[in-house]
């Protein structure tokens, strides 16, 4: 359910074929695609395949009326910020109030003035675009541009669920900068920030396109590696560890910074209990890396009955 297509999609839901024809003709030259359905259930079905950028909705339809469609849209998490513009022959205030209270964004009465309709659609699309940017920004860490913890939690739960359903390979790396407090205390917080940013850049440069890098906390990061077993994940982890150990920092060229990495991964995800337990295993591997001397990668292959961790590199 992505909106990566080039033109926004506007969907019309109205039981009148006359209105469909009219709207298609009037919105023909607008910079968006238009799809139309004659009833609520058909439209809601289509939304499962592609979430539109805006819904033009008639209220007075037989069977499932417009109010019921608004409720159904608002009950769909993926459509939380999808604007709903009501087109209706119902002109009573109470209908407008009811529609707005249910979550409609705007209300245009039939017969329409088309310049007005076009302008209101443009306005609603602008707002939708801003809301999407806001949602994206809410999932991004300000300093590094990586996904933040909220985004990580959401994605990790999703990946584990899918991995379990299809028995896929999946690995999780938890990475922590060694002695980070020392850097802040000795060289100041700006130096600390630079190390955080530099680490994020190294992670980005070392991972593959399919991997998802997140800043989990202060100096703690995670990398979700879909379709990747523990051996391949350890290659990525080792790449990051080595690059950090070799990096030279402008504010303290004589002082190198290392990282410890814990990886928990498997070639058969259905064997693992759940997302939280998996994260805990990665954390334990990280702990083993720290207490084994730091600047190393420890791997837990998540095999039943195996608690021995192996070291990469």
């Amino acid at each position, binding site marked *: 359910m992505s909106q990566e297509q080039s033109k926004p999609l506007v969907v019309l839901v109205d039981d009148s074929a*006359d*209105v469909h*024809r*009219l709207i298609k*003709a009037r919105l*023909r*030259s607008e910079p968006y695609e238009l799809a139309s359905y004659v009833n609520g259930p058909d439209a809601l079905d289509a939304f499962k395949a592609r979430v539109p950028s805006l819904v033009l909705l008639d209220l007075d339809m037989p069977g499932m009326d417009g109010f019921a469609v608004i409720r159904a849209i608002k009950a769909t998490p993926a459509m939380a910020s999808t604007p709903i513009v009501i087109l209706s022959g119902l002109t009573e205030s109470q209908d407008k109030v009811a529609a707005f209270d249910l979550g409609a964004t705007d209300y245009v009465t*039939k*017969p329409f003035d088309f310049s007005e309709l076009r302008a209101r659609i443009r306005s609603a699309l602008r707002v939708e675009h801003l809301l999407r940017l806001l949602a994206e920004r809410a999932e991004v860490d300000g300093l590094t541009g990586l996904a933040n913890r909220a985004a990580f939690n959401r994605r990790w739960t999703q990946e584990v669920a899918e991995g379990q359903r299809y028995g896929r390979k999946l690995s999780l790396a938890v990475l922590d900068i060694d002695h980070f407090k020392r850097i802040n205390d000795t060289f100041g917080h700006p130096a600390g920030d630079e190390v955080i940013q530099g680490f994020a850049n190294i992670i980005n440069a070392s991972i593959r396109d399919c991997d998802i890098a997140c800043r989990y906390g202060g100096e703690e990061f995670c990398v979700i590696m879909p379709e990747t077993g523990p051996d391949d994940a350890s290659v990525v982890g080792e790449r990051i560890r080595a690059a950090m150990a070799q990096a030279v920092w402008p504010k303290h060229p004589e002082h190198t910074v290392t990282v410890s990495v814990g990886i928990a991964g498997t070639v058969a995800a259905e064997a693992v209990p759940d997302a939280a337990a998996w994260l805990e295993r990665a954390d334990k591997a990280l702990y083993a890396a720290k207490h084994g001397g730091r600047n190393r990668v420890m791997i837990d292959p998540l095999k039943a009955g195996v608690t021995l961790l192996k070291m990469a590199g």
Partner: protein
Amino acid sequence: MAEQSRSEEPGGRGEQAGMTAGVIRSEFANDPDMREIVEMYVQEMPERIGRLEEVWTGQHLDELKRLAHQIKGASGGYGFTPVGDAASRLESTLMRLSEGSTQVTLEQMRGQFGDLLDMCRRVQM
């Protein structure tokens, strides 16, 4: 009432074919974006009229209200504002009736229905 007798006349539109007064043309007849669909709307008018007459004769007032509602909602968009206005008046009357108003008379309904039919018959590109 004049409207009532006209509504029972077959080919009422044909009798006005040569007259420009009384013909209702679309405000968008010269709009290239709209021409094609206005033509379609006009071509469908006899069907709409037939449906209205059928429903009136059978006294299906709920269905009549729905038809009036649809015509109100669409005809203005195709450039036939007077038709939409007539449909709107009929719809309001039928709504008041179904809400239990005792002020609505048969003459009123018949008159407004006749007006709407008349408007529909006069529609041309």
